């Protein structure tokens, strides 16, 4: 009885705090606990992304990377370049090898794989319907067990048609695609496409907490997933900007190209 009341108190407290934070930016919520910096990608060296950390995914994948995405991913500097302390992934409207758009996608597969920690990136999102940038992770064992058994942690996904919202998601066996465990976060003021925001997870054994700036908005534990918990293992990172596809829908005549996703840094803490 006492325990139930305690947990009730706790959940009510968290809910109230989130409400409170939504209106008053100066009140702080305990969002992060891991503060020892163990990896940082500051995108300080101009040119192509650091080849010791990043691989390019090229082309259209299978069925538009599984989502009917309309872009062709390239490694050309027009689509991806490090410049002025930023990684810029730029989506363009152009005919390119049978696709109507180009963009870029990089992964740290086989080069940087991490189990647990606080993983965050500071990103300014692009403007316009049909754009679908993301900072996300896949289980490093994807080649052995395939998706969704390997698991997927979407630290941030963003749809250009909704410039004040973003979402964080986990996919795994029995809970993937439309059945994934996902939550939206909507800004009370400001937008994601005209300023930088910090998107991150704090991840440990049997939990993943999702945050934006100073707001914790999503917590996933094994009891939240209707299947096997596949997140107690190493994951690699992915940065990309898709154009069109099942989730965002196609760009329309209001979507101005080119559009750039700006990544200031990725930092990992323990």
């Amino acid at each position: 009885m006492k325990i139930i009341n305690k947990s009730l108190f706790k959940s009510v407290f968290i809910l109230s705090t989130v409400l409170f934070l939504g209106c008053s930016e100066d009140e702080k919520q305990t969002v992060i606990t891991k503060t020892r910096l163990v990896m940082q990608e500051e995108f300080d060296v101009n040119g192509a992304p650091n080849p010791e950390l990043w691989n390019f995914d090229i082309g259209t994948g299978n069925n538009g990377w599984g989502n009917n995405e309309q872009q062709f991913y390239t490694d050309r500097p027009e689509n991806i370049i490090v410049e002025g302390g930023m990684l810029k992934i730029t989506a363009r409207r152009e005919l390119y090898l049978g696709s109507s758009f180009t963009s870029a996608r990089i992964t740290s597969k086989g080069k940087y794989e991490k189990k647990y920690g606080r993983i965050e990136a500071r990103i300014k999102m692009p403007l316009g319907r049909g754009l679908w940038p993301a900072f996300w992770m896949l289980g490093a064992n994807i080649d052995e067990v395939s998706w969704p058994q390997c698991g997927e942690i979407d630290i941030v996904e963003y749809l250009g048609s909704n410039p004040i919202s973003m979402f964080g998601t986990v996919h795994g066996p029995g809970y993937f695609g439309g059945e994934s465990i996902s939550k939206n976060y909507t800004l009370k003021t400001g937008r994601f496409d005209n300023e930088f925001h910090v998107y991150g997870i704090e991840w440990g054994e049997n939990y993943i907490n999702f945050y934006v700036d100073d707001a914790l908005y999503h917590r996933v534990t094994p009891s939240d997933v209707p299947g096997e918990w596949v997140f107690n293992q190493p994951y690699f990172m992915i940065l990309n900007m898709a154009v069109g596809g099942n989730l965002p829908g196609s760009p329309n005549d209001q979507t101005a190209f080119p559009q750039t996703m700006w990544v200031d840094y990725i930092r990992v803490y323990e």
Partner: protein
Amino acid sequence: MKNSKMNFLVKTFLFGLVFMTFLSCERDLSDEATDATFSKTGAIFLDAPVEMGSDFYFPYGGSKPNAWSVDDQVSYKGSASMRFDVPNANDPEGSYAGAIFRTEGAGRNLTDYDALTFYVKASQGVVIGEFGFGEDFIDNKYIATIRNVSIGTNWTKIIIPIPDASKLVKERGMFRYAAGSQGTNGFGYTFWIDELKFEKLGNILNGQASIMNGQNVTQNTFVNVTSTVDNVVVNFNLPTGINQAVFVSPAYMNFSSSDTTVATVNDAGVVTSLSAGTAVITATFNGVQATGSLTINCAGTFVNAPVPTRNQANVISIFSDAYSNVPVNYYNGYWQPWQTTVSNDFSVNGDNILNYTIFNFVGIEFSSPTVNATNMTHFHADFFFPGPIAPGRQLRVIVVDFGPNGVFSGGDDTRHSTTFTAPTLVSNSWVSIDIPFSAMPGLASRQNLAQIIFEGGDGSIMYVDNVYFYN
């Protein structure tokens, strides 16, 4: 016991947080209003008009004056909404609904806000012509309007971004609307608006602004001619991700002239030509260059037409600054399909000039009422051709009488055409033409004169002044 106390604490704590949240999110309007010289109240209508005074509804001319009412049966929030009954197009009291809502008193300081918002629904799906603010029927300085707004039968929130709130320090034009039945086959409908207020949303993105519809427009002028920068549009991206074009007064822009010795531009976008030469008028909005421009090609000092010297008593004037003119339906009928002539009339130091460009032919009509020129003996007009006179070029002046029935056609219209050629026609100098009625045998009567038609243009420019009958 312990548990119930804890629950009590939880509830108190929760209540406190919710209460504080409410306080920090909602503006306490009345407190802010007392501090400022100009009220900072954002609300215009919640369940009743807010701080609008008693006399705030000013219908547009030709609109149904009683289209607006407060409906206490329908509301998005609270107990009432504003109801707008758009009339049938043939309603004798007015063919459409439209008005401004002008707050009484000194006006409001809206600098804390970034949008006018409201909820709207209609009795059927309709596209409503205009919603906006900034029109006060005084100087209408900061009008901002969205057009062709699609309204459904469920409540929808409409956001009209304020182009530049720093300008709105004492605004009286709180709201404006115009709604017709063009899209409903002339049949009326009803729409409701609730929670009409200025708000600080904080998530509207400024986009590209444009002047002159984004085109690079050229105008030929003379010294002291004024031109106007118009078709000013600012594009915003709403928090819904949708681009919204806002049609705004030029006063929201910052203008500049590439050569202020040739032409200057004021805050309202009015351009004054000062000397011969070329000046390009451009604008910035929020420090960003707007697309489009107005290029002024000033030809120097305008040579006015000879000033008429006849007495008003001996004249029936159609177009002259020297006389009172009779009522004129139009100085350019834009007669389709063959007419190419466009009017770009201008004024030099108060002397108005008819400026026909791409001139092939053009008709002037003064049929309500027609003109009885029985006591007149001559027709007069002054013409100026700024370009060369091509060999064989004609100018035909046609005077038309509508006959006893006083209306066009009906078998009783008569007309006479008089042709002029070089050397009467000259370039770059005023050509004064006087035609006696005795030389117009085609005209059976001059009791019901109603049209003057100029023909024979070759697509070039012709200025016209001092069109009148005299004796």
